[in-house]
């Protein structure tokens, strides 16, 4: 039971506090999503503290990809591997609290001042970049898979599905899983 709550117990209260503060700091720096902080997270957890092995870190990120939900949940898997459920609470609250407060404050300020020129210029000026960043995300996701013949086909099918149907994206995801599990992405 205590293994579930606290993991292997290698982290004492001071270590958990350091973990919490470090994840809060990373949260504030995570422009572009939590995944952008993985290099720094790995440097600190694996290199500096030695609390996780390199392989543990990589499998934590990979495991979260196999589960539904936002990609930020890889942080929970890392927390679990560090200190059980307590670790999950520490890493998740640490990495979401600062960004949550900021998002709410910024959004409310923007709504209150929506007639201001600066707010309207932000919305209009950032809109094309926002869509450009989405294209870039697709690019970055597909890049490591460039070597597989099935990749361009799956990318094209998924994009067409999104554009021309209104069905759940779960269907093309299922197709991708079947194609990959069948060994066509080796």
């Amino acid at each position, binding site marked *: 039971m205590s293994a579930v709550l606290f993991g292997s117990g290698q982290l004492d209260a001071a270590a958990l506090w350091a973990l919490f503060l470090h994840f809060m700091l990373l949260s504030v720096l995570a422009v572009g999503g939590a995944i952008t902080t993985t290099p720094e997270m790995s440097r600190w957890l694996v290199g500096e503290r030695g609390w996780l092995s390199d392989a543990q870190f990589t499998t934590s990120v990979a495991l979260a990809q196999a589960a539904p939900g936002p990609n930020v949940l890889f942080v929970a898997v890392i927390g679990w591997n560090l200190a059980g459920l307590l670790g999950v609470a520490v890493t998740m609250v640490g990495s979401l609290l600062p960004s949550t407060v900021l998002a709410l404050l910024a959004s409310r300020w923007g709504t209150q001042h929506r007639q201001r020129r600066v707010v*309207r210029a932000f919305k209009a000026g950032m809109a094309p*970049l926002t*869509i450009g960043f989405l294209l870039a995300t697709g690019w970055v996701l597909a890049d490591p898979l460039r070597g597989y013949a099935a990749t361009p086909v799956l990318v094209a099918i998924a994009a067409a599905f999104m554009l021309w149907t209104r069905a759940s994206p779960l269907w093309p995801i299922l197709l991708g899983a079947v194609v990959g*599990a069948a060994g066509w992405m080796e």
Partner: protein
Amino acid sequence: MSGLTTEPLEPPCRPASAVEILRVFTALALQGFGGVLPVAQRILVERRRWLTSTEFVEMLALAQVLPGPNIVNLALMFGDRHFGVRGALAAMSGLLGVPLVIVVLMAALYSQLASLPAVAGALRGMGAVSAGLVVGTALKLAPSLRGNPLGRTPAAMMLIGAALAVGWLRVPLVWVVLGLGAVSMAIAAWRLPR
């Protein structure tokens, strides 16, 4: 008063309660593998019609430039707009609650799952599909730029410039926002109706 004419049309529908937000965000999170954003666009804009395409892009714009997961920021803003902090927490809990339980159970029961050859293969296939879904979402949202005060050509140039800078050249997002973004906002400020 001319500012009113550039306001997008109000979305036709709105969530009835914070509980409905919780339910819908739980459902959409559970359909999101390798990224929830395409599902969020599908459900919030196309199915529920709680947001117009333009509003979705505007909310996402702020969600992207702020630190933190884009989809979580977007959920918080959406919930807050309708039911204040209660709505924000409902949206965030929906997005993270059940998926968190699932991922922790997976980690507890079998942390090596993702390294099984068949699962690793499936993850690669799913990865390619999630890339395509995001691209499709971008293409679907692009027509919402039609009414943008920037004008057609500058907007298209900004879109392509941002995609190349982040996707191809791998420039950190912050620098693209401070560089290209500043230029784009300056042009928008200059062209906006007084």
